[in-house]
């Protein structure tokens, strides 16, 4: 069975001023799968994630070397429209960040920004996105109410709905469940499992059990380098590199 590759990264190195956060990282992210990035604090996994949608550009003094190919095209190329890239490759952050607007306006924000007009079109899009994010039933009677009134777990799903509304291809998630309680986390993981049928998901997580539960592939980062990348089941039962073994069995950090 041929596995399509969504991202192909070759020799990626990222520095913030003089500090090299990533060194010579090369790997492939398969399409329609969940790839988890694990590693101790400061190992570069979040930096790597932010490179995939060029959110690193917002950081002062960030330098990027190497190639990051999305469907075969280098996203750091000269002619690349960053706004369009971020439409295709969306991001969910650690703490939910809905805008101070109504639920409806939050979800409609992305489409409106990209030029979608028409009440009927937007209504349909909002409903579809909220359904995909497993939030529709909980908010359908209060679309006009402030988004900030929702609970943490609902806000995180709202943020995902907002993301889905722009119809991306890739979902990047930076520790999306770290501020949620177990039930919300379970719902979120269920959602991720469903989403991978349509999207490619890359998720950074500190929670090894979560990575084990929801990902197909897991990549272990340490000190800015990629140490091991393998099928999740294999990596968590018989890792190849001793450093991977030591990390996941808790024998260091």
């Amino acid at each position, binding site marked *: 069975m041929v596995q399509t590759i969504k991202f192909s990264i070759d020799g990626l190195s990222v520095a913030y001023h003089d500090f090299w956060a990533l060194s010579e990282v090369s790997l492939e992210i398969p399409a329609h799968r969940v790839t988890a990035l694990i590693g101790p604090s400061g190992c570069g996994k979040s930096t790597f994630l932010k490179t995939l949608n060029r959110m690193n550009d917002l950081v002062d003094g960030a330098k990027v070397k190497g190639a990051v190919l999305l469907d075969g095209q280098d996203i750091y190329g000269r002619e690349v429209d960053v706004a369009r890239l971020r439409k295709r490759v969306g991001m969910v952050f650690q703490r939910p960040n809905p805008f101070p607007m109504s639920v409806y306006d939050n979800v409609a924000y992305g489409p409106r920004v990209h030029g979608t007009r028409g009440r009927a079109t937007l209504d349909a899009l909002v409903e579809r996105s909220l359904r995909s994010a497993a939030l529709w039933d909980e908010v359908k009677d209060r679309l006009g109410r402030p988004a900030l009134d929702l609970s943490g777990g609902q806000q995180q799903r709202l943020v995902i709905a907002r993301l889905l509304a722009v119809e991306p291809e890739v979902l990047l998630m930076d520790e999306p469940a770290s501020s949620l309680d177990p039930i919300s986390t379970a719902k979120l993981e269920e959602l991720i499992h469903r989403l991978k049928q349509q999207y490619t998901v890359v998720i950074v997580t500190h929670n*090894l*059990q979560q990575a*084990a539960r929801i990902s197909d592939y897991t990549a272990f980062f340490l000190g800015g380098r990629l140490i091991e990348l393998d099928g999740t089941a294999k990596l*968590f*039962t*018989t*890792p190849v590199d001793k450093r*991977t*073994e030591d990390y*996941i*069995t*808790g*024998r260091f950090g």
Partner: protein
Amino acid sequence: MSRSAFHVELQELQNAILKMGALVENAIAGAVQALVKQDNRAAQAVINGDDGIDQMQLEIEGRSLRLLALQQPLAKDLRFIGTALKIVTDLERIGDHAVDIARIALRLAGEAYIKPLIDIPRMAELARGMLRDSLTAYVHEDLELAQGLADADHTVDSLYHQVFRELLVFMMEDPRTIRQATHLLFVAQHLERVADHATNLGEWLIYMVTGQRKDLNA
């Protein structure tokens, strides 16, 4: 529980397995001894001792499951606990075989044996040796020792076939020996199974260390 306390628990789990292994080994030795010496008290002791062995199995299983739930172990630690669960099953079965041998000893007590028991004690000795080796290999993670169990198993199998043929001849020549010979045949079969279980232990050790499942009985 902190990570280091977890490692201490793993060590204690291993110790419990070794203790159970020792109990089981003594049971086999005691049962065969009782058979050879026709010692009823010894046989009864083995039968009574089985409760203790079953207790240990439950205790080790309980501990293992608790560790799985609370610690969510991965990689080597996970394989270690998985192996522990499989090993105690094999050990407990060996214990049951010892009890069965002891019961046969009770049944044959007071009878004169149709022939002096030579091969059966030899099989027992080999099987016990295999059990000891498998547990040693387990503690020291000695893959070579575990590999060696395959050959030992072949030897035990050959011995078993030999005993089988001999007893068959006896039964054909003199139908009055059939009852005793059949019981002795069962004893040999139990010992052959003990050797198989010991080999299983070796296979699980190989999995624990390398992550590969290998068939040593082939």
